[in-house]
């Protein structure tokens, strides 16, 4: 899942990716491994569990700049609006690949956040 925040004119100011998946080792050492010929058991499971809700919070700062004027700190907020895109994809490989062949969008939305 990707969460990407951009300014009105498309400049990216925040990006976060989370991976939801079972993570297997070969049960011989502690390295995560791919491939049915090698996987034996799971060492970690970050996948979305059935009938369970996962809650995540993202705090994204609006760009600002502090200056000192007449001995006082003045904070100028450079941007008062950002568009935050959230996309959840089902990917067959670590690489995103071609849409609708190697990866499939389960959910996509854009939220506009404004401050006064």
């Amino acid at each position, binding site marked *: *899942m990707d*969460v990407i925040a951009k300014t009105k004119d498309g400049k990216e100011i925040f990006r976060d990716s989370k991976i939801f998946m079972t993570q297997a080792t070969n049960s011989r050492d502690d390295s995560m491994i791919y491939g049915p010929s090698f996987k*034996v058991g799971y060492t970690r499971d970050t996948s*979305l569990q059935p009938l*369970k809700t*996962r809650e995540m919070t993202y705090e994204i700062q609006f760009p600002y700049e502090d200056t000192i004027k007449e001995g006082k700190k003045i*904070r100028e907020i450079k941007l008062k609006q950002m568009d*935050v895109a959230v996309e959840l994809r089902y990917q067959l490989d670590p690489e995103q690949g071609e849409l609708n062949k190697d990866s499939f*969008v389960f*959910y996509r939305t854009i939220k506009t956040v404004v401050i006064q």
Partner: protein
Amino acid sequence: MGLLKLFLSLLFVAVPLTSSAIQQVVTEKAKTIDELAKMYDVSSCKECHREIYEQWERSIHARSLIGTGRTMGTFKRSLSTLKNVFVHSGVKDIKDIKKEHLMPCFKCHLPQIKDADDKVARQLAKAFEEGDKATLSKVSINCLVCHSQKAIIHQWQDGVPQPGVIYGRKNGSHPDKRLNTLKESPILTKAVSCGQCHGTGPNLEFPQPTQCATAYGSYLHSYIPAGGAETCQDCHMKKTGKGHLMPAYRDAYMQKEAVDIKIGALGYKFLPERDNAVPTAVLTLRITNNAGHRIPDG
């Protein structure tokens, strides 16, 4: 003496006839992919079950050795692993391959391999190495896999799947020359039917374990304890209305139904300390998995 000779003659005639009458039907293993395909030919099913057949034809089951493309590639890599990594497998070349070397995959991707000999395993291995889709598409998980070979799991209660019988939801006759009897399978509408292949964890029964699909394990150990009450068939066949296509992550309806996402968005000035108001956007995401198993899994 004459009577004894007559009696002995009759005995030598009667015994073989009796033996062949009670003798079990001996099936010869398929020696080629084409023979295996013929043994498991389901084209006659289409005559009466057209809609179901056409759904199945478009499913991934119908291309179980090719899959989405990754399946075929994974088989090819597995062959390379057999030769180069699993040094005690006995496989250095395709000519060394026996069914047992491919069973960790064919257990689910081609269960009917049990009715073929090692030659077929070698032919399939060659087809994987050459990327020969035309050959690999000749055999797959078809009607006879689920409705015959895997239709009975309680074999000490119900016996083994019988030749000439197709398993469904009732008993009766079945208008097919080869499969002329219909018998009820107690498990066809139950999740365990799918669970035979869509796995619970590592396949530890093999000399070298494999692990592929584990969705049934997630179903049993997470979905059911969370209060889930639907079966694989409920979600992947009935609710979609797409029956034997059994759609999953590639299907727009399933994608939409799989998860609920709620997002709260807030913009404000956070004051962690005096004179330090930080303009902040806060996004809270709540993702609920509505499926009968973890996502992703298979």
